[in-house]
């Protein structure tokens, strides 16, 4: 099929990662009482961004699986 599935996954996770990081950096720290004081938006946003970037990299390189 013409579309490498890793590209849409990469884009989606990159967008989600950026959104969560931005919101995590700007948001009021009080809302994180619920997540045990951890800024889960920021931390998980970084993980999602990294995963998204990896998928984009693999998809762009077009390695045969």
């Amino acid at each position: 099929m013409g579309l490498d599935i890793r590209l849409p996954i990469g884009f989606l996770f990159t967008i989600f990662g950026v959104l969560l990081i931005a919101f995590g950096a700007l948001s009021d720290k009080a809302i994180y009482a619920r997540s045990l004081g951890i800024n889960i938006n920021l931390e998980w946003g970084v993980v999602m961004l990294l995963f998204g970037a990896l998928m984009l990299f693999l998809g762009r390189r077009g390695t045969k699986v």
Partner: protein
Amino acid sequence: MLRTIDWTIMIVYFVFVLGIGAVLKRYVKTSTDFFLAGRSIPAWVAGLAFLSANLGAQEVIGMGASGAKYGISTSHFYWIGAIPAMVFVGVFMMPFYYGSRARSVPEYLRLRFDEKTRGLNAVSFAIMTLFSSGISMYAMAKLIQILHIFDSPFAWLGLPQAWIFHFSLVISALVVLGYILLGGLTSAIYNEVVQFFLIVAGFLPLVWLGLKNIGGWQGLKANLDPSYTHSWLGMSNPHTNRLGVEWFGLTMGLGFVLSFGYWCTDFLVIQRAMAANSMNSARCTPLIAAFPKMLFPLLVILPGLIAIALPTQNLAHLAGATTTIQGQAEGRGLIPAKMSASGQPIRDKDGTIELDYDLATPNMLLHYFPTGILGLGLTALLASFMSGMAGNVTAFNTVWTYDIYQSYINKKASDEHYLWMGRMATIFGIALSVATAYMATRFNNIMDMLQLVFAFVNAPLFATFLLGMFWKRTTGHGAFTGLLGGTMAAALHHALTLPQGGVPGVKGGWIATMHVYPSEMAQNFWTAIYAWTTCFVVTIVVSLLTRAHEEKGLVGLVYSLTERPTQHGLRWYQRPAVLAVVVLAATALLNIVFR
């Protein structure tokens, strides 16, 4: 409760889902593209879709609920009730499904046996898929209502809150309709892969926070009765474990009959492997799926366990006082009691308060996730519902078009016509699912009855496939009578037994009560065992009494007459046999760790 960021995440996701369909549209030219993704899907994509198509409502919500109710023994549904069957279908059965070039599971039955066996399977399967996708939609709309996801936008637009249910149904139906119409099975498979990653991304941080809060696995053990944290403890007797089943019923009923009947014969999952780009990819599809499947209990069952282990508390103050889930005071952990219409907690006949276990996982999300990642978690939840629905719809449109329409209604149409029919089938399939969802709101008993009938029809299936693939003497008459006999045996067994505390009726015993099982689960497992055995014996006897098929017509369809697929030139990690051994060893290890 939800803020702009949460809505943004949800909307971005829906745009992507439809966008993938739109991009794939130009690759759909023939009916094979639409129904079988042009047989061009790489193994790992087909494998994740194989897993995701089964990740419907039952999985995420239901397994969390069972985790809270039965504890870690729920993982038997994965380690006993899925992995061995997935390995078997990949290693032994896929050569016939893929190698015969059948376009669907009923079509394989047509090639191997005869028209009537295919017809029986095709019609019952088509009705069943519509029914399950309807149930999935109903559950999703109900959940959206309970979690008050759309309350604030509806209030803002001045729309009545009662419309939220209808709106949720229609919007989910339209999204699934949109992407399947555009890209067919490829679109469904691609979206299932996206949904897989999204579900992991949404639930992994939940499990992480939950475990951190309660002190890890040791903390769970310290807060719960040992029966929750051991999967094999007390399995020698149905009265000494939470499931209410003994090891034989569990391994034979769930592990053999039900699990092999589902994973090895259900076109919903097999279709994903049939879409793979080569024989070896098709064989690896279920094996690749088995790796994440093996670890999924950690993702979907643990939230339920954590929810029941936490100290009982009031959620209302946490969720910004917008969650008004009733019955929290009488609940346990994060799980509220079931409430009657008059606002009283519902008690069973021993006077124990019944808990609303289905809320275990949703409440975990609300409890731990602040706005932002909450949007992600809810999107993951919606994604799981949609992947289950889409799986049913793509399986339905294929079986309808190839096995019902092309076989009985219009045999000699052009390929464009069948492609058009597939799109039409998608539309009316989804319309009928919506109708089923509304039926579920009005007639709960009918739904229970239908589910029962499907269980009777499904239970014997694996005996037919096993004999068909591995015994060349099996005949069409044998297979057909065996299936009917097995279904009747299931109905009869159900009619003569009851689970403990059950009243005769939809729970069983509608002719007489000859045996009482310690639990409904034990009754179900034994119904399946009787159905399978009857089908197995009847098929053999009738086959021996009827004329054998000619051997040259069975090449590629039966084990003894088919060349083994070669594994030359494959790297070790591409070989089905190697993957199979690794999966089975790892599963055994998990069973030992969580015994």
